[in-house]
């Protein structure tokens, strides 16, 4: 019997989620989690060669395949990281065994939600999937059951709900715009149909729809001023979830946004979505840049950096054109890999030090050379220094936008510098100087960190031609 790979990508996490909910024992659960993630990754990679036909509900195209593979890859590495991380949490008594079971099940359910959102060929289904992924992460953010964790989860939940509602309203409006052309019923929600027929949609409805979608999905992306849930959710949840949130969930929401952007771009009468995206992108960059300075919590620090990067990415997509879109895609990929690598390091560091307070850590390169230097490398990568890939994408963003919109590019550069100053300041304190805090060994899984950083490093000076081809195709698709 052959299962078509698209269903496999969805079924594997779903089935394993059910299994994980039933199976007791941390080791079995962690192992199954890793295996399931690895299987998903394998299937996702196979999609690169065998692309199934477009269905009414599911499909794979050039845009989604990039996201799916990235999603499954980071999902896999995070599951590896999570195995050692959760083990430590269990040992140190911060988590109870039944919660761990819950955690593993939710992890796969979340992966299911994200994969579904990426593979959906239906804007309704996509909405459902994004919300599913959001709700599972809400539950995971509150996993520790501390006051702060619950508060963060609650905040995430409320703001997320409003975002959900807004996104749904936007989806309905898109349907309304499509109905006269595409006919009633499911036909008018199928993405491939919509794209084909988009030029004849009512532009005004599309405009309003986009605003709602921008705000609805933008809440998930973490754009300022809709970001409020993001720092707390990153800071209070288990670190693997922080990594997944930054590395994946934001991307998924962004993916949804991009889908609709394409739709708008295809309609000649609609407003250009680009100025809105540029505006929100710049606002996010500037906002996050200044917010970075007063951070005392190491995970919240990098959460704000995620907001900053989402701002850059949205800015890049807003600048549009083949260059801007290419840069945006690259930046997004690099950010996923880098930020999750950083969170892996940070997670272990926080476990060693027993705290997330930056002031209680220091001299990591002295006390924990591997963690310290990977953190340094990660921060160097995330702020856009070569030889790492973020440099390439930021290079493209800035160089391509400066000739078109010099003033906006200047604002962006200013924001980048301010953010750089903050991150560098904290990183210097963390990695160098006198050793602070406990110096015990940690049972760390360095492999995911190295894998991510190695990929980002290679991407810094060489991008594989097939990847470039995809990106270029997607870039033209995005208009």
């Amino acid at each position, binding site marked *: 019997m052959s299962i078509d790979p698209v269903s496999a990508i969805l079924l594997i996490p779903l089935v394993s989620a059910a299994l994980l909910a039933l199976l007791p024992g941390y080791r079995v659960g962690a192992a199954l989690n890793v295996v399931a993630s690895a299987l998903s990754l394998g299937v996702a990679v196979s999609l690169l060669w065998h692309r199934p036909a477009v269905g009414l509900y599911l499909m794979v195209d050039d845009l989604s395949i990039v996201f799916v593979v990235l999603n499954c890859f980071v999902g896999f590495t995070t599951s590896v990281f999570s195995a050692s991380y959760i083990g430590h949490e269990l040992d140190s008594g911060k988590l109870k065994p039944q919660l761990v079971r819950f955690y593993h099940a939710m992890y796969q359910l979340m992966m299911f939600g994200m994969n579904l959102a990426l593979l959906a060929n239906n804007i309704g289904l996509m909405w459902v999937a994004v919300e599913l992924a959001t709700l599972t992460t809400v539950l995971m953010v509150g996993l520790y059951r501390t006051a702060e964790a619950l508060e963060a989860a*609650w*905040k995430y939940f*409320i*703001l997320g709900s*409003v*975002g959900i509602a*807004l996104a749904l309203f936007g989806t309905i409006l898109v349907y309304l715009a499509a109905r006269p052309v595409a006919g009633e019923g499911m036909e008018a929600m199928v993405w491939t149909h919509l794209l084909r027929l988009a030029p004849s949609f009512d532009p*005004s409805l599309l*405009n*309003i729809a986009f*605003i*709602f979608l921008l*705000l609805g999905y933008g*809440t998930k992306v973490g754009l300022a*001023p*809709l970001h*409020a849930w993001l720092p707390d959710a990153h800071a209070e949840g288990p670190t693997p979830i922080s990594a997944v949130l930054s590395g994946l969930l934001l991307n998924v929401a962004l993916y949804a946004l991009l889908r609709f952007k394409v739709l708008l771009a295809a309609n000649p009468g609609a*407003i250009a979505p680009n100025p809105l995206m540029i505006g929100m992108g710049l606002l996010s960059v500037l*906002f996050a840049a*200044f*917010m*970075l*300075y*007063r951070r005392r919590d190491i995970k919240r620090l990098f959460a704000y950096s995620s907001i900053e990067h989402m701002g850059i990415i949205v800015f890049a997509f807003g600048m549009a054109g083949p260059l801007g879109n290419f840069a945006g895609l690259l930046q997004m990929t690099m950010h996923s890999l880098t930020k999750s690598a950083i969170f892996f390091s940070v997670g272990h560091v926080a476990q060693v030090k027993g705290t997330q307070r930056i002031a209680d850590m220091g*001299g990591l390169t*002295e006390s924990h*050379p591997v963690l310290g230097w990977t953190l*340094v490398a990660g921060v160097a990568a995330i*702020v856009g*220094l*070569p*030889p790492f890939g973020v*440099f*390439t994408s930021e*290079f*493209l963003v*800035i*160089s*391509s*936008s*400066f*000739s*078109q919109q010099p003033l906006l590019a*200047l604002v962006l*550069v200013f924001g*980048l*510098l301010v953010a*750089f*100053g*903050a991150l*560098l300041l904290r990183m210097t304190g963390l990695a*160098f*100087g*006198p050793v602070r805090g406990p110096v015990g060994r940690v049972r760390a899984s360095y492999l995911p960190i190295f894998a991510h950083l190695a990929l980002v490093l290679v991407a*810094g*000076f*060489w*991008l594989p*031609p097939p990847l*470039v081809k995809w990106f270029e195709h997607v870039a033209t698709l995005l208009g």
Partner: protein
Amino acid sequence: MIGQLAAVVPAFIVLGVVGIVTARVQAGRVLVYGGSLVLCAVLLGGGLAALTGDIQRIVLPIGIPWVGGHLRLDALSGFFLALIGLGGGGASLFALGYGQSEHHPGRVLPFFPAFLAGMTLVILADDAFLFLFGWELMSLSSWALVMAHQDEATAPSAPQPGYVYLLMATFSGLTLLLAFGLLAGAGGGLAFDNMRLHAAGPGVTAGAFVLALIGAGSKAGLVPLHVWLPLAHPAAPSHVSALMSGVMTKVAVYGFVRIVFDLLAPQPWWTATLVLVAGGITAVLGVLQAVLERDLKRLLAYSTVENIGIIFVGLGMALAFRLNGFAAGAALAITAALFHAFNHTLFKSLLFFGAGAVLNATGRRDMETMGGLIHRMPVTAFFFLAGCMAVSALPPLNGFASEWLTFQAVLLRPQLPQWGLKLMFPVDGALLALAAALAAACFVRAYGAAFLGRPRTPAAEQATEVDHWSLTAMGGFALLCLLAGIFPGAVIDALAPVSQAMTGARMPVQLADPWLTIAPIAASRSSYNGLLVFSFIAVSMLLTIAAVHRVSRGIRRSPPWDCGFPQAAPDTQYSATSFQQPIRRVFGVIFRVRDSVDMPAPGERRAASITQRRWDPIWDPLYAPIAGLVSWIAERMNVLQFLTIRSYLSFVFGALVVLLLTLALWQ
């Protein structure tokens, strides 16, 4: 040949990896520094060959996919490659010995070759991506080297060297990126060849020029963007300091020359004025701060700022001549600037090696804790003296030759039609003269305080001469300083292809002149013969000594005259601080120097003390407010972290209303 040179970059990286692996063993040091030495020799040879060779290019399948990695080797890059080879080779040689005392080899060995790789890549790059890649790599790896000894750094309240450094370096990279963005235009022609062909409008040209000046200038250490330099250069291990001061700043100069002379169309005249103003101020301010500095390595770093100013004055004059169509003048000015860059690499590396040797021998950087080292470290002292004389622009050493050329360029006085240039030429002449004189004062003080007199601390008293590797490196550079000083014509002729490529003209062939005299325009106008001056001095000195010793009766040693207070403590010597006091009184107004003396009343038994407060004319009015502003905004905005969910919801709501309003208005 470009292929081999390009292969040097990955070879350096491999060395870096070797450094990671072998950091803990002695062999690691030998491997890394020995390997660097060999690779630097390759760079030197390849660079020298490229000076006269044809332009070579290759395109590699790296970097931005649709652009590729363009590499190019021409006379200009050849010259700077040779400079890297020279400076890097010297630093490697020095480090073979100096590195023995490194406490954290793991923090130095991997980054030293990476630093060299970054610089080499900048020079070889022929597209914006690779250029900036190398540029930032150079910054990042040198930052790591600056951070190597962070734990031994200064008080936590002072600006952190590594922090300020990388921030400014990134600022410089981003500024250059903007410049390239302008040059590339909307088409995204990131290869330099596209930029050369792309005829940009005057606005774009001027914009790109200003950005290039800021970007390259902040990496080179042009006032007011130099603040990182005196912090970062001394903080690194000394051979790295030498590399940063001696070579990295030259790479920045290269960036400026490449963009402004090669990629950009001729600019409006005020651009040249801008460079002249910045260069002149840099030269004087740099040396003034050097005079007031107590820390030997920081003093050297400030002196680097000064020399960068001199180089930029030369470049500014070349620009001024070029845009007025005076090619011969431009050739003279750019040759002077590049010659000075070359010289600075030689003597600043030498001086930093010397400072490193002293640091190793005494553990001190503060000159007030040294003294009398000429007795304990005679060879180092001798070489350091040569460096001091070279940097003070004293004949017959090389520093004088290039400053002399720069002065000749000032004196060309063509009929410059622009008032700004008319004004800036003589003013810069005066500023350079002032800088040269102050540099001499500065290095008399430095040498006198560190090497002469009596030891001020036990550490200085027990210093021992450093190892042979270090001495060889210092001796080599000292010899080169002398050679470049007495055969300046050879260097000038070697620079001719560069000047030809950048300005369309070259200086007359110098080696053809009799007795190796150099004459920039004509012998009747001005000429200088380092060889003759040197031999004159040497011969007359030897003759005099011989003659005098025939009639004289020999010498007798005795205690120095003590004014009747026997066994005066070493503290009673003239110190570095007291030495600068007259100059501080004359120029202190710029730094708002305040000396407050705490003199105990008669009968009190506590010690008197003098505290000196200095205002930094750049940091305090420029950087401190910026830092304060960012901090202020961050503080104000931090409130946003602690709002209620309702407030956050109202943000969402507000955004919705605003966007809908925008939409309504737009329709």
